[in-house]
């Protein structure tokens, strides 16, 4: 079955540094979604990527979907303390109607 691997598991950065989390699927995806979960909170949908090679930006966040639609990345430029939380990717396969979450990357930001 489909597996979604996410790295790194943890990332500690100084405020102002950049941050990237990577997501890799064992199979080709129909789309990939990204979620953010603040400490003590619940996952909140950030964005969905559908097209091969797609790049989307939300302020300091840049999301990419690989050409083969098997990998994705989330890059945060100049992190702020408000970026703290766990970032999850979730790969969706339309044919199987199957959504798989990665294990998440927990980001901490030192002021």
């Amino acid at each position: 079955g489909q597996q979604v691997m996410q790295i790194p598991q943890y990332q500690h950065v100084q405020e102002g540094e950049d941050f990237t989390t990577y997501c890799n699927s064992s199979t080709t995806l129909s789309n990939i979604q990204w979620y953010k979960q603040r400490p003590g909170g619940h996952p909140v949908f950030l964005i969905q990527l559908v097209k091969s090679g797609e790049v989307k930006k939300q302020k300091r966040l840049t999301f990419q979907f690989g050409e083969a639609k098997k990998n994705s990345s989330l890059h945060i430029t100049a992190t702020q303390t408000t970026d703290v939380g766990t970032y999850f990717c979730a790969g969706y396969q339309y044919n199987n109607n199957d959504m798989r979450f990665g294990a998440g990357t927990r980001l901490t930001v030192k002021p």
Partner: protein
Amino acid sequence: EADIYQTPRYLVIGTGKKITLECSQTMGHDKMYWYQQDPGMELHLIHYSYGVNSTEKGDLSSESTVSRIRTEHFPLTLESARPSHTSQYLCASSEAGLSLGYTFGSGTRLTVV
């Protein structure tokens, strides 16, 4: 306002008790899901439903059951709670068809003593 609601927010219960975690959504979503998550850790799918009278088990067997009698309501029942069930339980919903993102509830933090 369209949203997804979970009750109770926190629950402490004794071993062996039967409990039901409530989840309701007002968005008219066909798909609903239950996930188990230790704080900040991986999400484990317990059960899901694609519509009324449709329920399926997920990857994690947690000795629980669900029902979907109405579109908006998807309760999760633990027949006999154990300390290993201590965790956060998250309910989510999404539209049918090509997934457009899950909306998660605020979760129920369950402690079994």
